[in-house]
């Protein structure tokens, strides 16, 4: 098949909201240019926020503080459970408290470069500017960041940066930041500005007269389907890493909210950009339900190796030094074990593909602390990594002080997401998308400690300032269930549930999800090829067809039915998976988290093709034949260069 059998080309798309001119003042000028909503009118305006992670929680709280009527939704039993809570490392901010040469411009520069020149300069610069305010805000809320003996905030350096700008709360920064946002949210709930709907799942977007006006939700406890109306809808529903079945995402993370919006006209940008984290605990068997990340900091002292010989089944201790291949140190002498995430991940895959992997199924490499223990002593290693070692032992039952850890890469974050303009508004008027759910700031690769920064920047500072420009035209006409477009959205949801429940096949939903994940990991994971992606698309389509014939979804739509919830999410993952593969197939270059085997340097490094691919691929839903809209990227301040870590 030729490319045009997979997609068609539509008109270019452009971000019309970002001012041009000096980048340092763009955000200020945009805020000045945006219309304001009179405080008395805010009370008359309703905003729906889907998701209560860092982005959604902080947005709902802040919109409530501003005086809007906010309706907040999450599928968990409490807004405090959102998966932002699991972020370990930290949050970047250009505070330059260390006096080590950091600045807004440097954070901007590092982020654009780290994103492999596939992000927008305007957005990234704004993110770097706001990073400073985020830390102030969180400290004022009582987030217990790590401090030095003088009582001032401590920072550490993190992958991809030469300055120390990462603020942290031990290995639980995400938890502490999320609880800060959660508490601000609960404060607004108590104040009556936010109404919370936990254990509710958004299943459809309601668009009336061309504007996003509400959502169809299912109460997961009672099974009741209801239509909820607002003057604007904000999606903060996170990333879609669970399309791979195994990922470091929470089990419930899903793409449904985004995908339903996409089907209703919101463009989906760069779906193929996924980040694969190199240091996760490997799969232990077919029962594996999720993967656990081990902090990247382990690579500071651990040495990565595999046996030199294929199929070497001896235990690590029996393999003599000269029969070990410290492949990262060998291939990348300058950075050694500290090469960026994508490179470390791919190198691990390569040695495992050669048959030199260790552990069950040969899908693992050793991360060995013997040298560090010999050099620093066991106590020093324990002081530094004790809690991580414990976590490893808890999961694997192996003692990493005496045998090397086994690690393997796992899907961790998705840079792609719904396309938004500078105001974080999607191509559907009134539909805003924030946090990991949008595509805006990380380009093709996200730097460590930048996800938390983006979620909070969007939620606390960007959206609350830009949404007013849209809402100034409101309130929009009142709606009820009689409206044809509302009724249609509701029917769509009811029919789909009915359809899922009536398949009554002979395979469980999880077995389909696992198989889909295997296809995606094999062909749309760390390394992608033209032939592999074509194969994947075919296989996904076949599997999707089989799903709708053979899936077994027990129970009914009344009351709590976790199997049915999963079935709906997996059905959407099938459609997303196709689009991811098509996006990956069309992007015949390597960039950040997207590595195309056909596009590499002689040394085997990722090679971008700026001539042909310096654009955002924003896809319009078209069933089997999506429509590609390109947004050209221009770089005025940071000039594209090839990354090299040798």
């Amino acid at each position: 098949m030729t490319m045009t059998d997979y997609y068609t080309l539509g008109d270019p798309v452009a971000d019309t909201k970002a001012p041009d001119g000096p980048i340092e003042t763009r955000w200020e000028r945009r805020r000045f240019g945006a219309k304001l909503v009179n405080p008395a009118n805010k009370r008359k305006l309703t905003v729906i926020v889907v998701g209560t992670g860092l982005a959604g929680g902080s947005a709902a709280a802040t919109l409530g503080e501003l005086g809007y009527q906010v309706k907040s939704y999450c599928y968990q039993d409490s807004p405090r459970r959102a998966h932002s809570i699991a972020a370990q490392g930290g949050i970047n901010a250009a505070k330059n408290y260390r006096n080590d040469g950091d600045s807004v411009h440097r954070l901007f520069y590092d982020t654009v470069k780290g994103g492999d020149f596939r992000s927008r300069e305007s957005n990234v610069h704004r993110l770097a500017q706001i990073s400073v305010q985020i830390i102030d805000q969180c400290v004022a809320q009582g987030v217990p960041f790590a401090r030095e003996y003088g009582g001032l905030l401590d920072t550490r350096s993190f992958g991809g940066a030469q300055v120390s700008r990462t603020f942290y709360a031990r290995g639980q920064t995400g938890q502490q930041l999320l609880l800060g946002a959660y508490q601000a949210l609960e404060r607004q709930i108590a104040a009556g500005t936010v109404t919370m709907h936990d254990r509710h799942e958004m299943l459809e977007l309601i668009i009336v007269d061309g504007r996003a006006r509400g959502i169809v939700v299912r109460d997961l406890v009672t099974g009741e389907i209801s239509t909820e109306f607002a003057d604007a809808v904000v999606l903060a529903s996170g990333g879609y890493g669970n399309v791979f079945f195994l990922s470091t995402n929470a089990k419930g993370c899903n793409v449904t909210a985004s995908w339903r919006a996409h089907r209703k006209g919101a463009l989906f940008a760069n779906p193929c950009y996924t980040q694969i984290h190199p240091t996760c605990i490997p799969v232990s068997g077919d029962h594996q339900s999720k993967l656990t990340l081990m902090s990247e900091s382990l690579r500071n002292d651990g040495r990565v190796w595999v046996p030199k010989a294929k199929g070497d089944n001896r235990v690590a201790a029996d393999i003599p030094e000269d029969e070990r291949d410290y492949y990262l140190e060998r291939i990348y002498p300058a950075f050694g074990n500290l090469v960026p995430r994508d490179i470390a991940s791919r190198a691990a895959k390569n040695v495992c593909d050669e048959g030199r992997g260790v552990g069950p199924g040969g899908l693992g490499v050793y991360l060995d602390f013997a040298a560090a223990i010999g050099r620093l002593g066991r106590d020093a290693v324990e002081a530094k990594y004790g809690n991580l070692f414990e976590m490893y032992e808890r999961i694997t039952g192996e003692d990493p002080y005496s045998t090397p850890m086994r690690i393997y890469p796992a899907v961790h974050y998705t840079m792609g997401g719904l396309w938004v303009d500078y105001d974080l508004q999607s191509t559907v008027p009134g539909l805003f998308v924030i946090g990991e759910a949008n595509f805006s700031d990380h380009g093709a690769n996200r730097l460590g400690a930048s996800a938390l920064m983006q979620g909070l920047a969007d939620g606390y500072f960007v959206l609350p300032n830009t949404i007013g420009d849209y809402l100034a035209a409101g309130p929009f006409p009142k709606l009820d269930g009689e409206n044809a477009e509302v009724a249609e959205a509701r029917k769509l949801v009811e029919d789909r549930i009915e359809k899922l429940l009536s398949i009554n096949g002979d395979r469980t939903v999880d077995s389909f999800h696992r198989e889909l994940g295997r296809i995606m990991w094999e062909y749309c994971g760390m390394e992608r090829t033209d032939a592999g992606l074509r194969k994947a698309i075919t296989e996904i389509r076949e599997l999707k067809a089989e799903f709708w014939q053979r899936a077994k979804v027990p129970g009914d739509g009344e009351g709590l039915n976790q199997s049915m919830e999963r079935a709906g999410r997996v059905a959407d993952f099938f459609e997303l998976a196709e689009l991811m593969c098509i996006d990956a197939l069309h992007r015949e270059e390597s960039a950040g988290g997207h590595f195309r085997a056909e596009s590499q340097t002689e040394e085997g490094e990722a090679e971008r093709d700026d001539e042909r691919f310096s654009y955002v691929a924003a896809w319009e839903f078209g069933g089997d034949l999506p429509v590609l809209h390109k947004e050209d990227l221009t770089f005025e301040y940071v000039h594209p260069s090839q990354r090299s870590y040798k």
Partner: protein
Amino acid sequence: MSLKLRIWRQADAADKGSMVTYQLQNVSPDMSFLEMLDVLNERLTLDGEDPVAFDHDCREGICGMCSLVINGVPHGPEKATTTCQLHMRHFTDGQTIDIEPWRAAAFPVVKDLVVDRRAFDKIIQAGGYISAPTGSAPDAHATPVPKADADLAFEAATCIGCGACVAACPNGSGMLFTAAKITHLGLLPQGQPERNTRVIDMINAHDEAGFGGCTNTGECTSVCPKGIPLETIARLNKDYRQALRAAS
């Protein structure tokens, strides 16, 4: 290994519920406890039975969504470990395992092993926050915080709100949860202006939610997956006493 599972089944909040026995073969010692339940549910689904409903999300011990009283102990036999991080290698072949939901009036059962823990959110709503509207913050370094205070505050703030403390408490008290938040915010300079009202309002909310009173048995801290110490409750008591004195 093979196991005999006795699991609490309850169709919905109105149902009376009972323990139901299941035999499960071929359990791998490398499975997590929840993965073992996944396997059971796959089988139940194919057999045309209703799978067991249980709460879970991150499966890495931080979101606080998983629960389960396993053989009489909330989160099972391993210290400082959530159910999702508990692995089957801690059980033996042929063992009988009893699995029950958190039992508390404030946490009504939704279905099977799923309970409603919104009472905790209510306690936070009553004052478990620092009022700092977005944009109002001074520079982060405007107020230094002694490292010792920051570290202690952090320890208390690691509470994941799972509710194991309530499940374990013979009085069904949520005092450890409440105290963890009081301690976290009370140790920081930013938390001082609302310190007195916070403790009174949160304790009132705790009592109104139907939790029992604390008699310092210490069961809570011994099952807490994050090891929140009993000392936080003394701190809460002290704050409460001071707040009452300030109010009178």
